[in-house]
């Protein structure tokens, strides 16, 4: 039974990585840049929920909505202020800017909220599921996380495949100029992508903190890097790739820390990434684009 509960915990952690990785992968797909500030948007979103619930006594679900709104605005603002002026700049300049934005957000949080770790309550407050006469107990938040991740992934897939805005997004991610010729407003489409990615970051933040109960200005940093790893693992730019990559990463991390060593868990996660990239450089679901003449 302990294996199953480790596995479920891994899937739950993986679901959080997957939701974050979806944000990374969509932004990468469209803007061809790694938004290193993504993890810190998650942290800001978690503070919003923390203060809304603890200081203002808001309903947790209303607080999550508020957090999604704040993060969406934050994502659009970051794109407009920091990344848009660099649209035609070298990718190194954009990368360094993204790291700069990441540190900026962390330090803003230090200034506003202090460096001490807050104890983040399980805001969802869902009952646990008890199976096999009490030998397997799955926390409500865990179940909620897994279901939320699946819904988000399916929702995004439907969005990009079935809606005009989603198709425009795919077109822009493949060829901005050709998309423009079709009448697609490229800037608005990029903003929309940042908005969706950052909104998802808010949800990921709440789920992460509800399970691990620790919130400080650096909370988003390491999970951010791991979600990025998950996106690369699955094939950056691919929505199902981010989902599978996130899940696998979470499961590998959780099982390694349970059965091998919790200190080695991160090393194992990144070792698996290196092996996958050596064997298949485009990631699990990565597409090899071939030019045809």
């Amino acid at each position: 039974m302990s294996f199953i509960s480790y596995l479920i915990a891994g899937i739950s952690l993986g679901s959080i990585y997957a939701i974050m990785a979806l944000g990374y992968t969509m932004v990468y797909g469209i803007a061809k840049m790694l938004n290193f500030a993504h993890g810190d948007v998650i942290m800001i979103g978690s503070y919003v929920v923390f203060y809304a619930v603890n200081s203002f006594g808001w309903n947790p679900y209303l607080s999550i909505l508020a957090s999604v709104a704040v993060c969406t605005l934050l994502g659009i603002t970051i794109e407009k202020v920091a990344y848009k002026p660099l649209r035609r700049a070298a990718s190194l300049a954009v990368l360094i800017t993204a790291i700069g934005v990441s540190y900026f957000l962390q330090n803003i949080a230090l200034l506003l909220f202090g460096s001490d770790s807050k104890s983040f309550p399980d805001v969802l407050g869902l009952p646990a599921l008890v199976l096999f006469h009490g030998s397997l107990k799955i926390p409500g938040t865990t179940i909620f996380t897994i279901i939320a991740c699946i819904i988000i992934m399916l929702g995004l897939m439907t969005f990009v495949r079935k809606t005009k805005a989603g198709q425009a997004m795919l077109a822009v991610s493949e060829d901005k100029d050709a998309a423009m010729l079709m009448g697609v407003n490229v800037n608005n489409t990029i903003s929309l992508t940042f908005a969706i990615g950052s909104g998802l970051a808010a949800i990921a933040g709440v789920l992460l903190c509800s399970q691990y109960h620790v919130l400080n200005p650096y909370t988003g940093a390491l999970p951010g890097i791991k979600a990025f790893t998950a996106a690369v693992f699955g094939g950056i730019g691919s929505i199902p790739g981010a989902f599978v990559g996130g899940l696998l990463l979470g499961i590998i991390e959780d099982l390694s820390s349970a059965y091998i060593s919790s200190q080695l868990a991160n090393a194992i996660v990144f070792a698996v990434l290196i092996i996958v990239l050596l064997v298949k450089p485009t990631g699990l679901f990565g597409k090899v684009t071939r030019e045809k003449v």
Partner: protein
Amino acid sequence: MSMLEIKDLTVYYGVICALKGISFHVDEGEIIALIGSNGAGKTTTLQTVSGMLAPESGQILFEGEDITKVPGHKIVTKGMAHVPEGRRVFAQLSVLENLRLGAYTRSDKAEVEETLGRVYKSFPRLEERKNQLAGTLSGGEQQMLAMGRALMSKPRIVLMDEPSMGLSPLLVQEIFRIIEEISASGTTVLLVEQNAKKALSIADRAYVLETGNIVLEGRASELLEDESIKKAYLGE
């Protein structure tokens, strides 16, 4: 009044002056060919007209309206479509999805379906392969898709950039036949081609570009007989 009028257009490509104040016009219903060697500025001309590049100076008038400063994504709503050099189809999307993106700015679904039917009629191959990813099509099929996608916006003028590039002689024939068909259906065509002989054989008038300047213009049939043109572009 001309349908499309270009006045004294100057365009920089980075630090290079790609167009040095060119002027030309396209009348409704015409096929106009822009010919010239590599680097003469043909592609730059089309890209500037359709808003992919911003000119340094000069004016672009389309049906009397100054569209020089109109953002690129709004040009298509004015009734102008551009089949870019190298086709630029969306390789990861299906043929049908590509075509639907061509009608991105149109909201009347029934009308879009009707146009789709007409595009399928002109390009039966596209209907056969509508669910296939565009990236898996052959070069000729991709060219047809790029043209079909442009027609989906129901344009009054189509700009075509090197539609015959890299295609077999048989397909080149086919593509030029389709261009004549598009023209016959009432759409004005501005055609850029390296295959000068073919282009001049279907065009009404033509302009010859050389390093950013228009050096010659005239009726296509006359240019076909011009000694300097024969020598420089027709390989005779």
